[in-house]
Structures are given as structure tokens and as C-alpha cells.
């Protein structure tokens, strides 16, 4: 009676104890953008367009910009588990004239890979050398300014990512919370 009862009780309690650690960690890539461009003299706003999969988002994607306070800036990109990768276009804009937004610098990154239940970080540098001068932008061939495919990700480092508060819930893709 005694030994069998104890074994039964422990076995019954084991799933409950195991369930304590069953919450999945988020699968996420934190995009951290830094630049030597000056705010607000050179750029005033930032926009990002994200698409699931390994291909560049369509150019007619809905574009919403947000004012930049200072660099670095960051956005969390969370996987909902259906696609293993995503692609995005990050832009720095000059919106001194609200009726005429100028793209100062644009960077396309494709096939960014999620790692299940890990938060990784993509450090994206947008140097002044890659900025457009008026309507003249750098030609393809410069590895610093060219499109990046399957970039290297690093473990999330709170010291490198801007301090923020945690999100109470996910925002829909590209839509405000």
C-alpha cells in the first residue's frame, strides 16, 4: 500500500510539475537600426515594410513612417510559426516637407531566418555613404549598401538594443497598436 501509493502520487504529480515550464518562449528577431546620419538635419522618419518568406516585399506595400527621436532605433519582429523567414525594407526618410517625403536611405534584407523559441538580434547599420544625394542613390555593387540576403543574427543583447517596455500584445503586421 505505502510504496505503491507513493509511486502513484508522484507519477500523478509529475505532469503538473512538468507543465510549469511549458510556456513557449517567443520566436523573434529584434531589428536594431543605427546610422551616422543626423536627426533631424538629415533624416526625420523611419519606415519598415515586412513580408513573410525569403523574397523582397512588393514596392507598393503600404508605407507608414514614424518620427525618429535618436539612433539606434528598434522594432521587434515576431514569428507566428507559419513561415521560417521574413524579408523587409527599411527606409530613412526626410519629411521636413510633409507633402513631399524623400527617401534618404533604403536597405533591403531578405530571408531573415527565425530560430524557434529564441530571440535574436539583427544589427543593421545604415551609413551616410549609402544615402541618396538628391535623386542619385548608390549603384548596386557596393557590398555595404547592397541588398543583404540571409544576414547573420546574434543573440539578443539588452546592452545593444534600446531599452523599451515589453509589448502587452502583438500588433498586426504593419499596423499600429
Amino acid at each position, binding site marked *: 500500500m505505502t510504496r505503491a501509493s507513493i509511486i502513484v502520487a508522484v507519477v500523478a504529480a509529475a505532469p503538473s510539475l512538468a507543465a510549469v515550464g511549458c510556456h513557449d518562449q517567443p520566436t523573434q528577431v529584434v531589428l536594431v537600426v543605427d546610422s551616422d546620419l543626423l536627426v533631424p538635419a538629415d533624416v526625420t522618419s523611419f519606415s519598415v515594410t515586412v513580408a513573410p518568406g525569403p523574397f523582397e516585399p512588393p514596392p507598393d506595400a503600404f508605407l507608414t513612417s514614424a518620427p525618429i527621436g535618436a539612433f539606434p*532605433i528598434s522594432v521587434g519582429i515576431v514569428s507566428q510559426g507559419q513561415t521560417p523567414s521574413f524579408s523587409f525594407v527599411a527606409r530613412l526618410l526626410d519629411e521636413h516637407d510633409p507633402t513631399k517625403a524623400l527617401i534618404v536611405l533604403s536597405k533591403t534584407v531578405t530571408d531573415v531566418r527565425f530560430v524557434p523559441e529564441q530571440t535574436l538580434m539583427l544589427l543593421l547599420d545604415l551609413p551616410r555613404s549609402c544615402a541618396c544625394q538628391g535623386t542619385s542613390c548608390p549603384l548596386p555593387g557596393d557590398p555595404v549598401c547592397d541588398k543583404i540576403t540571409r544576414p547573420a543574427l546574434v543573440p539578443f543583447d539588452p546592452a545593444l538594443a534600446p531599452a523599451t517596455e515589453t509589448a502587452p500584445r502583438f500588433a498586426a503586421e504593419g499596423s499600429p497598436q
Partner: protein
Amino acid sequence: MIVLPIVVAAVIVAWGQPVLPPQLPPEPGSIAPAAGVERTEPAEPVALPVAVPMIARAPLDVRVLPAVPSVTAAAAPAKARRPLHKDWWFWAIAGSLFAATVATTYAVTRPEPLPYRGNIYPYVIAVP
């Protein structure tokens, strides 16, 4: 089917037969003369064995004997039932169930880990 009642009746009858004591051999001095031999001297009266069935004879001779302690009662006194809460395994099982309840409650009610929230709009983007 007819045989069964006959067999049962035979068994009952056999079971109910009085048990007779074994026939005692005759004593040397009381040997009965063989048939046809003339008896010359009268012999002393000899008690002939009588077959007495082993049944109680009424009235019964009832005697009051001094009380003898029961061996069974002395050897195995009634064991008092031990309270359940004094057994260590009771508390082991109760503790396990309590721990399981606490762990389950914590696991079910605790919030999920939140994702990192950026410092600029749109802060967090969900990819399908």
C-alpha cells in the same frame, strides 16, 4: 436423476448410523464352549460385552469448570486502529497532491513571456 436422491438418502443414513465400539476379544476364562460340547461345570457369571451406542445419555452431567483464559484471545488481542494522519505515507501523498495543485495553478495562470518591444512605431510586427 433418480439415483441422486437415493445416494443422498444413503449418505444421510450412513452418516446417522451410531458408531459402535470395536468388539472386544473374549477373555481367556470366558471362552465359550464350542457348539456341541457338553457343559460340565457352571462357570462364574461373566459380563458379556454389550454393544452400547455412543450417544449421550440424559440427563447430562454438567459440571462447572474453573474459567480458563482463552488462548486465542490472549495471543491476539484486538489491535487498535492507528489514526491515518499518523502514517508518514499519508503526509507524503497529501504533500504530493498539494505540490501538484500549486504547480498546476501557477503554470495555468502565469502570463506568457512577452516579446521585445521596439522603441519606434510599429514597435512589434507579427509575421505569419
